[in-house]
Structures are given as structure tokens and as C-alpha cells.
């Protein structure tokens, strides 16, 4: 599924936890590990990294370290991902001082916007590694959704998730039901029922033919903005991972007039896997 998994390292206090998290994924997916460091390469740093990798038991034969000396970190990391044809880039979120709230720094956001591959953001990387027991997949009707569902199912199987929910949202529910109020009571409730059934059918259609490998999948339907609803749902069930798709690169304008994905990046309700084709 992921031939190459990359991690950007900065010798921060959480670096070891992040390396162990990625190492776990590398083992699960039988991948090659790419470590990217943006900054001057010194003998001291090289030795330090080598020691850490040895101590953490990282298989160095399947690990490549890239030293990117000059340039903006986000640009260099994206560049390295392109050069190496990375399939998954892992990054860590920042924690708000004193609160159990996580956010993405400007570098993190830029990487997500520009990365040519899928990006997994871990809000709280742990040395004992994160368990992705409860996974939520975005099932809202978008062009990329069939791929997101397929990818989400594959990922959930690989990490042995116990509970997978696919959340689908009825677009513009208020407008639809508002215009439906021209009908009789029976017709209105029929419309309401149909809107829900259509969304369930859409997810079922996309699950057809996929090998679920014993996964327990729940389909949930909601109304409202999908990013907000996904964030609420993840918080409610205390999800470990949210999987969404992105098929376009985001720009500065997306921050000024945030769209759904950008909303999620500022909320960050749990670990977030952004699937890109």
C-alpha cells in the first residue's frame, strides 16, 4: 500500500516517538523509510541520528536519510517527497500549551497543502505507538470519495481497527428540506427518508466489491458541513484516526476563505490521514 513512508525530522523532543510511530507503519506496510532533515548536515548531527536509529532498532538497510541543506522547510520536504516518490508522509501536530488541543503550525499546513502524497498527521506520537482502533472515514459525496473509502478500508485492515465508521453528509439539508416544505406531510417525510437512504446507498455502492476482511463498518448519515460534522463525530466517539481525501492543492486563498479541509486542519479532532491520489 505504501512503498515509501517519509518522516521529516528536526531533532525535537518528540522525534524519537515519531520515528517509532513511523517504524511501526513501515513494518506493517513493508515499506522503505525516508527520513528528511532540513538544515545543515554536520558530523555531530549525523552521528546523533545514527545513534538514535540504532537505539530505536530501525532497520538501516531499509532507511534512507536525506539532508536538505538550504531552503524553506516546507518546500524542501515537499521536494524530497517528489524526488523519492514517497507514498505517505508522516508529520506531528503541535500541542496548545496547557490544553488537550492540537494544531498545525504554518510549516505543517504548507506541507499538507503542497505534498504530492498522502499525509498522516499524528496529534500525539507515542513511543509505544498509536493504536488506530476507532477509525472514521469521510464518505461525503466527492469525486475522490470512492478512492478514500477503498484506501480507508485497506488502511483499517492493515492496522487491525476494531471499529470503522463511514460518515456521509446530506449536502444543503436545510435548503432541501426548506424547499420540500411546499409538499404534504407524507411527502416531506418521504423526502427526508429518501435523502438519508440515498447517502447510505452511496456508501454501500462504494463498499461493494471491497475485501472488508472482517472489519466492522458502520455507516452514519448527518446533515451540515462535512468537516464540522466529521470533527464533531470524531470527538463524540473519541476516534483514533480520521481519513479524508484531497484532490487539489490548497492555496493561501483557502485560509482566507476556508473550505472544509482547511476547517479540519484547524480543528484537528484526532489523528488525520489525508489521502491524495
Amino acid at each position, binding site marked *: 500500500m505504501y512503498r515509501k513512508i517519509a518522516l521529516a525530522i528536526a531533532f525535537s523532543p518528540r522525534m524519537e516517538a515519531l520515528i517509532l510511530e513511523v517504524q511501526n507503519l513501515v513494518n506493517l506496510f513493508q515499506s522503505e523509510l525516508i527520513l528528511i532533515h532540513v538544515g545543515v548536515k554536520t558530523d555531530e548531527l549525523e552521528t546523533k541520528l545514527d545513534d538514535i536509529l540504532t537505539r530505536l532498532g530501525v532497520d538501516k538497510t531499509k532507511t534512507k536519510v536525506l539532508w536538505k541543506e538550504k531552503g524553506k522547510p516546507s518546500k524542501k520536504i515537499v521536494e524530497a517527497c517528489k524526488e523519492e516518490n514517497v507514498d505517505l508522509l508522516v508529520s506531528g501536530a503541535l500541542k496548545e500549551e496547557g490544553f488537550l488541543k492540537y494544531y498545525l503550525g504554518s510549516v505543517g499546513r504548507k506541507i499538507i497543502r503542497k505534498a504530492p502524497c498522502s499525509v498522516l498527521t499524528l496529534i500525539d506520537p507515542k513511543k509505544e505507538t498509536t493504536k488506530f482502533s476507532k477509525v472514521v472515514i469521510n464518505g461525503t*459525496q*466527492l469525486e475522490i470519495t470512492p478512492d478514500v473509502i477503498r484506501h480507508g478500508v485497506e488502511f483499517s485492515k492493515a492496522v487491525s481497527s476494531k471499529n470503522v465508521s463511514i460518515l456521509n453528509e*446530506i*449536502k*444543503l*439539508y*436545510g*435548503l*432541501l*428540506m*426548506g*424547499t*420540500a*416544505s*411546499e*409538499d404534504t406531510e407524507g411527502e416531506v417525510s418521504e*423526502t427526508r427518508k429518501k435523502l438519508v437512504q*440515498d447517502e447510505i446507498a452511496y456508501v454501500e455502492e462504494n463498499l461493494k466489491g471491497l475485501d472488508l476482511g472482517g472489519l466492522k463498518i458502520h455507516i452514519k448519515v448527518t*446533515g*451540515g*458541513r462535512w*468537516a*464540522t460534522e466529521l470533527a464533531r463525530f470524531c470527538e463524540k466517539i473519541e476516534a483514533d484516526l480520521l481519513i479524508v481525501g484531497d484532490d*487539489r492543492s490548497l492555496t493561501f486563498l*483557502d485560509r482566507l*476563505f*476556508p*473550505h*472544509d479541509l482547511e*476547517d479540519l486542519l484547524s480543528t484537528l479532532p484526532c489523528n488525520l490521514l489525508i489521502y491524495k491520489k
Partner: protein
Amino acid sequence: METLNHKEVINLLLQLAAMLIMARIFAEIARKLKQPAVVGEIIAGIIMGPTILGYLAPDFQMGLFHSHEMTNIALDGVVQISVVLLLFIAGIEVELHVVWSQGKNALKIALTSMALPIIAGFVVAYAFPEFLGVNINDRAVASTFFGLAISITALAVVARVLMDLNLFKTKTGLLIIASAMVVDVVGWIIFSVILSLSENGSEGLGVWPTIGLTLLFTVFMLTLGKGLINRVLPWTNKQLAWPGGLLSLSLAICFLAASFTEFIGIHAIFGAFIIGVAIGDSEHATEKAKEILHQFINNIFAPIFFVSIGLKVNFIEAFDPGVVGVVVIVGFLTKFFGAYLGGIMAGVKRNKAMVVGFGMSTRGSMDIILGLIALENGMVSESLFIGIVILALISSIMAGPLMGWAEKLKI
């Protein structure tokens, strides 16, 4: 404080009851014929007004609608509130994240579908002001107003048609919805600028301060104002009665914004629209709350407004087939081809681009309000206003069948 006397109160209540009953009867007939309710409501007004009832039973019509001056002032207040609320709900319908998700394509369709009718409408009205009934003293502004009125898409009407045709959730359906939302926003911003340029519009602060304040208000409401709403709404939802708290406070904010824009010299409805956009786009304005707002405004205040149109104008006396013909032909063709062209530019297949064209041609809401404001400000004649209303009726009636036909075309 002066109050209505016993007879005036009875008269006002009878007026409202008659308007709502007739609107309901004709909306039901329209529904049976698979037409939007607005078509029935406009026809109900024409029947109750000077056109039919005033002709068949002039004394009765006079007694009901013209016997007490104070009642008419009170009714006008109710109609004004109805228009403000209609614009508020039109704003709530605009969801910027839906527009954003459709990206440049929605923008292309919206802008081409507006540009063509605005230019054509302006040229025709400017070239033949006397024939069309455009105010010759305020020719440029009035001509632009006419162009703008025929360039609007009725979002609620097209949403209903798309739902009936099972096209709402398709790529084409969402593209039409997003484009119609852009048309609404751009249309009302142009409207506010034109109104401040008109002779009657900028009574208060002068043209440039009015335009400046309007743009400042719009940008503020869609950025900082929206942020503020995003902070207040979660508190409202948690701490106050639901949906009572949300409904009364959002309407209060709507009236505040409306009074502000009225104060700066543009119409109250602009403020209501922009505040509607800001509230509707908030992630904390739940879909259930929007549904309630829709139901209560669309079924009580919208009928009062649409019926009131027929009470104001005699559709037979002021009917001019030449003017109506020009308005309908120019309005329909330019809007269709503008949107069709936008669809092609957005890379939509030809038959889908035709669906977009017919979808964007639906009217029957904001265009009529624009026409009415132009009529009340002396910018257009009754004949031209009738043309705008008939264009709305024809395009709303034809939208469903034409979109269904285009959808099946194999081109």
C-alpha cells in the same frame, strides 16, 4: 403613540388572512401542476389586485385593500418585513463552502450568466428608454438596474427543480447551485452600488461614502462578523432555548443589519442578505435551524410579499405586449446563453451546459424584488415591471421541462 383603531385592526387582519388563504390555494394548484409555489402566489396577487378583483368587484376590492389609509401603512410595514426576511433567507441559502468546493467553474458560469443579460439589458434599455419605460432622467442607472434584474437566478426555485429531476446531488446540480449562490452575492453587491448611484438612493451620506460603507460592511460581515457569529452561535445553542434563542437572535441581528444598510443609503434588504450569508455559512448554524427558518419565512412571509405585488400593479391596464416580449426574449435568451457559455468554458458537456443554462434561467424571487425597488424608485415603468414578473413566471414554469429535456439529449 398613534395606534390602529378597531376597524383598521379588523381590516389589517382580514387583508393578511385573505392574502395567505389565496396564496395557499394558488400555491396548491401550482404544486398539483408541478410548478413552484411562487408562481401560484404571484397569480393569487394578480387575482386579488386591481387586475381581476378590482375589475370584477371594485367596491369589494376597494373595501378590503384601500378603505383605511393607516391599515395600508401597517400592511406596507408587514410587506417590508417580509422582503427583509426573504432576503435574509436568501442569504442563509448561500453557503460559501459549497461555492468554494465548486471552484472557478461556478465563478465562470455565474459571471458569464450575469454579464450577458446585464450588458444586453443595459444596451436595450439605454437605446430605447421611452419604449421600455426606463426613467430618462436617470437613464444609465435605470438601464443597469434593468440589466441586473434580468440577470438574477432564483436559487430556491432551481434547487426545487433540481430535486424534482433528481439532479441536485449530481455534478451539474451542485455546479448550478454554487453558481446561483455566486449570482446572488455578486448581484446584491452590484445592486447596492447602483442604488447608491441613483438619484433617490443616496439621500443620506452621498455616493462615495455610501459605496465605501457598503463595501466595508460587506467585507466586515463576511470576515470578522462571521468570526464573531461563529463564537456567539455555539453559546446561543448551548445556553439559550433551542431553536427559540437562535431564531429570535438571528432575526434581531438581521433587522439590525437591515436598518444599518437602510441608514447608509442603500436598501435594508442588502444588510439582511449579507447577514444571512454570514449566519448561513457558519458551521454552528445547524441544518435543522435553517430548515425551520426556511419553513417559517417561505410559508408565511414569502406569500405575503408575492401576493402584495399583484395588489400594487394593474397587470392588464399597464400591460404592453411589446415591452413584455422584449423583456422575456432578451431576459431568457441572454441568461440561457450566458450560463451555457459559462458551462462550456467550465468544460461541461454540451447537454449538461444546456441544463446549466436553463437552470440558471430560473427566476421568481430576487429579480422581482429588484424590479419592485426600481418601480418604487421611479426608475422603471409599470409595463417594464410587469415584463420582469412575466419573465419570472415563464422561466420558472419552463425550467423543469427544459432541464429534463436537455438532460436526456445525447449531444
